[in-house]
């Protein structure tokens, strides 16, 4: 009965590869987010979707592309992975776009070699 789940939990890959991280929430929330936490533990928002519509798109390389097939899923696809992409990626959701309380997933630890 996990609220916000992410797969995979760990991802180790080579530079230049393309990878995807999946996120699903079973809370019935309208809004979902992707955050990146770097080695210094700074947590920064990347994208936000509300009912499958992109509403926040921070300054991230266009190698990162979010995809929301339905409001319960927000996947993150990364092309041409670089060393600097190594981080922990968190998915989150909130009941509505104006709801400050967000529920985070367990994170996906990405290591690019």
């Amino acid at each position: 009965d996990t609220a916000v789940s992410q797969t995979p939990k760990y991802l180790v890959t080579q530079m230049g590869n393309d990878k995807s991280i999946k996120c699903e929430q079973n809370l019935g929330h309208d809004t979902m987010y992707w955050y990146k936490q770097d080695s210094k533990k700074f947590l920064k928002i990347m994208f936000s979707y509300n009912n499958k519509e992109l509403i926040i798109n921070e300054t991230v390389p266009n190698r990162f592309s979010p995809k929301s097939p339905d409001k319960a899923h927000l996947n993150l696809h990364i092309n041409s992975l670089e060393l600097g992409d190594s981080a922990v990626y968190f998915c989150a959701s909130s009941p509505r776009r104006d709801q400050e309380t967000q529920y985070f997933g367990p994170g996906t630890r990405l290591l690019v070699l």
Partner: protein
Amino acid sequence: LAKTTQPISMDSYEGQEVNITCSHNNIATNDYITWYQQFPSQGPRFIIQGYKTKVTNEVASLFIPADRKSSTLSLPRVSLSDTAVYYCLVISLGFQKLVFGTGTRLLVSP
């Protein structure tokens, strides 16, 4: 977005009360104060949110003075499992982007 300042780290012992203060001098009228907790290898977890005076829930209390330029998260009788990073955030009602600072690393010892 109002910038927040918190102590980088704090140490405590089991059973003590821990107070973590956050400074947010340029908080706006519509801003709320929210605290999240993050354990190692986990995503942040909402703890408490308030606008003014005092808010209490089953895990913590939040004290906000009248000028709202600071706030204090109070954890009563901490245990070892309260060892985590605590983030203070100031966010506007209706504004869904959370901006996390460096947080305060709380270490609870036996």
